[in-house]
């Protein structure tokens, strides 16, 4: 049996979108996200909520190896969103990454074009934990005063890749971080440094 989508599709999608909007508008601030979904493993409820709220037939979706290997996940996403799956990260509008440690380099995803920087990939990462912590220092639009977050796990070389991503502004990918019950945003406008 296929797992159900949002119990209330209108307000489930709206609430998820609003959490993501607030997360990108205030990078590094943790927004609560409880969509009440029970998607097939290894898809997490947060990844599923973002997929259902934001993707449709117009958005090619790239799945990382762990998600792509599961026929249940593909069937779930295809039924609930109708989004075409792609195995080329440079063509993806959204990329869902269950295992951030094995995420391809950010530069391999669509970066947008100088005339249309909005045509870049939005990456959605599933982490074990996001906390207000010591590791990463954030600065840029939407950030008031010193803001620090700690990510667990922090993918190898992630900070250097984010710095490279920021250097290409206005081109670059936007990253949405999820953890159980939480979402945070790292849009391309945010400068991330290790403290």
């Amino acid at each position: 049996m296929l797992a159900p989508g949002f119990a209330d599709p209108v307000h489930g999608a709206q609430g998820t979108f609003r959490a993501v909007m607030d997360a990108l508008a205030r990078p590094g601030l943790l927004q609560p996200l409880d969509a009440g979904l029970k998607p097939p493993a290894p898809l997490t409820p947060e990844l599923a909520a973002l997929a259902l709220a934001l993707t449709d037939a117009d958005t090619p979706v790239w799945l990382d190896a762990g998600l792509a290997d599961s026929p249940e996940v593909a069937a779930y996403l295809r039924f609930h969103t109708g989004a075409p799956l792609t195995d080329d990260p440079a063509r993806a509008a959204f990329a869902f990454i269950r295992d951030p440690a094995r995420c391809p380099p950010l530069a391999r995803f669509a970066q947008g074009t100088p005339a249309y920087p909005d045509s870049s990939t939005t990456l959605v990462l599933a982490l074990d934990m996001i906390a207000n912590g010591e590791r990463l220092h954030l600065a840029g639009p939407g950030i008031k005063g010193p803001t620090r977050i700690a990510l667990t796990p922090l993918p190898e070389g992630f900070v250097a890749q984010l710095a490279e991503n920021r250097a290409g502004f206005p081109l670059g990918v936007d990253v949405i971080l999820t953890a159980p019950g939480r979402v945070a945003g790292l849009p391309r406008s945010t400068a991330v440094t290790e403290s």
Partner: protein
Amino acid sequence: MIRRAILKAIAVPGYQVPFASREMPMPYGWGTGGVQVTAAILGRADVLKVIDQGADDTTNAVSIRRFFARTSGIATTTRTTEATIIQTRHRIPETPLREGQTLVYQVPIPEPLRFLEPRETETRQLHALAEYGAMHVKLYEDISRHGHIATTYAYPVEVAGRYVMDPSPTPKFDNPKMDQSPALQLFGAGRERRIYAVPPYTSVRSLDFEDHPFRVQQFDQPCALCGAEGVYLDEMLLDDAGRRMFVCSDTDHCEGRRADGHVGTGDAV
């Protein structure tokens, strides 16, 4: 789809994201862009305020507020402090906005360079190259012709040090309120099919010159109804003899002050 455009607009502050504007139950020019942005973001917990030139009680404001009350069952208000979403046509409320509020602008012409370069293909390139010399020439021509920068509304701003943006036809009086605002600012242009955004706590700099710095309008007298100074005033014609009165453009701000006991002179000029 509109939601995805909003997310990209927030990620690239000041950049105009194209979107497939929908048919709305009102003609273009009446706020179809603002209505689509508001409809895309609002939820059960939101309280909506709609203003038209600062006023809550004009046709456009009343009909849009009633439209959302009827179709979404959302709570509405005229008080700036109570609202979580404020849809606006050409003013920013006098009451300072706070975190968690979203200001949705109705935008007629989103492209600040449009009257300098009519071709969209060219303005895209100019934005891509951050080539804004023509805009400075336009402001300079104002100075050479009038002795000062004569642009008083839709005054161009630079957002987060990169994109030059049209703040919609708000009076330039409101430009300083956009800088480092705690509220999220979203802009919807329905006919022109563009959405753009300024995240909270983002620098918004009005373009100017070292020897001709940006200045806002000054008014000679306070509001005739509530006596407020340092606010934007509307000129109201009172009779056929041409008697006029200057009153607050922001009706909620004016009513709030009068309820607190502030009284203006009530004098016509």
